[in-house]
């Protein structure tokens, strides 16, 4: 891991939103994440890339403790959010998840209306004082999710009745409606056409003004387009982490190079 130290030096510690140190994840006896150190900066987009099954989703789920819901999953090491270890006993995972939002790999709208899906988070956290404010929040979130025009006439139709790509954007809207400080997006564009993809990328860029975004993607072009930092995972190891431009043009590890040029994965 000598190559990485040079990269780490350029990262200023104050701007770090999330710092992961020596993270190990086990599913029962399977060692899914092996000693990962990574810094996620505030107001930046970080992309996780790597072949299928290398542990991107697993690591992403560690960042807001969604792995707690999996019985056999065990996390070691520490992950600091604003300097505080999120795996500390004092930390309430519920509050943490309100700050660190997540868009899942598979769209999972609730069996409720489109409106109620988006209003779910704001209602739970009491973000709106009245109905008008809530309407406003819902509309804004749906616009940011690039789905407002398609659903504005049927806000009270069930969210489960939408197409796969629409559901994916609904879930993005649902996640941004709660205004999280960090947004974790697991392949948010996997079912989207190029136009919707461009709109979601625009949203990611816009979110970067205030928040930090982590995005898992299988598209090299997307990673290159939207992210400033890129982490390459392989078989549970963080192989290389650094400036996106540097990773794509001048990777230090041979595995990274073969992956981005299409030889492994």
């Amino acid at each position, binding site marked *: 891991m000598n190559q990485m130290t040079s990269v780490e030096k350029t990262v200023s510690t104050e701007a770090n939103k999330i710092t992961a140190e020596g993270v190990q994840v086990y599913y029962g006896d399977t060692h899914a994440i092996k000693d990962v150190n990574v810094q996620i900066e505030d107001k930046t987009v970080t992309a996780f890339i790597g072949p299928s099954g290398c542990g991107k989703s697993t690591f992403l789920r560690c960042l807001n403790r*969604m792995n707690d*819901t999996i*019985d056999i999953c065990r996390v070691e090491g520490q992950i600091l959010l604003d300097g505080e270890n999120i795996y500390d006993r004092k930390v309430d995972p*519920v509050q943490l998840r309100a700050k660190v*939002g997540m868009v*899942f790999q598979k769209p*999972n709208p*609730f*069996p409720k209306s489109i409106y109620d899906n988006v209003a779910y*988070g704001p209602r739970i956290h009491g973000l709106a004082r009245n109905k008008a404010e809530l309407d406003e929040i819902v509309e804004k979130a749906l616009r940011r999710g690039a789905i407002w025009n398609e659903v504005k006439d049927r806000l009270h139709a069930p969210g489960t009745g939408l197409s796969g790509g629409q559901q994916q954007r609904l879930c993005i809207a649902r996640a941004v409606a709660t205004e999280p400080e960090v947004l974790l997006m697991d392949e948010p564009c996997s079912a989207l056409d190029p136009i919707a993809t461009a709109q979601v990328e625009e949203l990611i860029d816009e979110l970067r003004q205030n928040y930090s975004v982590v995005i898992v993607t299988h598209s090299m072009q997307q990673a290159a387009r939207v992210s400033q930092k890129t982490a390459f995972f392989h078989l549970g190891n963080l192989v290389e982490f650094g400036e996106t431009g540097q990773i794509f043009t001048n990777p230090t590890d041979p595995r990274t190079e073969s992956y981005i040029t299409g030889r492994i994965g």
Partner: protein
Amino acid sequence: MPVSWLILILAALTLGGYIAGRARARASVQGDVRRLHSLPSYYGYNVALFALVPALAVLALWLLAQPMLIDARVSGMIPDTLIPEGSNQSLVMSDVRRVADGLELAVSSGAMSADEVAALDADATDIRARLGEMGVALGSDVRPEVLEAAQAYRAMSSTGTLWMTGVVLVLALAGLAWSYSRTHSEFRARNVVERGVLTLLILAASIAILTTVGIVLSMLFETINFFSLHDWKDFFLGATWAPNFRGDSELSILPLLWGTLYISLIALIVAVPIGLFAAIYLSEYASKPVRAFAKPLLEILAGIPTIVYGLFALLTVGPLLVDIFGRGEEGLLGLNWMSGATSVLTAGVVMGIMLIPFVSSLSDDIINSVPQSMRDGSLGLGATKSETVRQVVMPAALPGIVGAILLAASRAIGETMIVVMGAGAIAKFSLNPLESMTTITTRIVSQLTGDTDFASPETLVAFALGLTLFVLTLGLNILALYIVRKYREQYE
């Protein structure tokens, strides 16, 4: 030849048919099974099916029909004068059958030779004593007419059985030979076997359905009998239940229905919240070891016979309630509202306890079928566990849970033992849960126990009550299934 031998022979023919069919199929393509239309074993199954199924079907029908036909013929031989006062034809016929069986036993055990039996004379030999020696006890001395009928019975059943054996064996051999001759490489044995399997499955399904239809029809006939003896307006619209075996009773279902529904309501009030919360705890909160321990335990609870719950009502819950609400100054609350241990509340509470595992295990299955990704979605937005359960899991599972509750309700309505022991026997309309009341099921039991006369409305009313109960629970079950099914479609 006894039937068990016949069945053994059939089994042997089936097995032989299977082996022969398979071998012939292989031989017809010189051992190159790729040229066969179906796998060789299908040819075997085909031959086996044709050897077994028709023969077995005829055997079953014959075994059912023969005794009926013989009974009808023989009972014609018994003169009416022979039937003693207070007895009837069927009692005499059962005597005849016993004598015939006894003689059969005598011959097969070697106590008498066949000729000896044929030469028996009721006046000369004490047949009752001789059969008694062999362990066949008869209620009275054998009269000549009975002996004659028994001899005829024996003769007919032995010829019948002989014919049956012949017909069944011929049928099995013919089936075997025919299907064996059809076995060659082009023959579509697999399709035939598939159709055979399908027929078998349909048969099984239709037996289940036909039995239900049979039950309903038999209830229906008796109910029609009842309504020809008793005014239907009194049954459905009257206000009093006062059966009187000297006639002129008032038989209205309404007070019984009231008792049934009231007790069921209390049972549901007890069972639904507790069962539902238990299910939520088990499926959402409990750790793996707790769940692995508690779930089977709850299911064992569901297997306790209801009579045990009845005892619990009678011995524990009833007296406890009396201690609380009754006994005046000596009671816990110093009240005197309740005098006896049997009451609507006793039966309702115990029935509710009985239903808890039923509600919880059904709801647990339904809650578990809500996909984990729903919960993840909610938790990922920063919702707490109980918010997730309340706002995402429950709404998604609600239709299924309503279905489960309706199923529980129909069980409560049809429950008998607990109400027999816990609810009392007084039919009335009352809102006081501390009084005893009675239900449809307990009245059915009491109308059919003791001296019954199947020509009086007081007895026949049981069938009308039973049919009403059946319609009621059937309606509830259909509603429940409809709701559950509709809910299933949402996810698949």
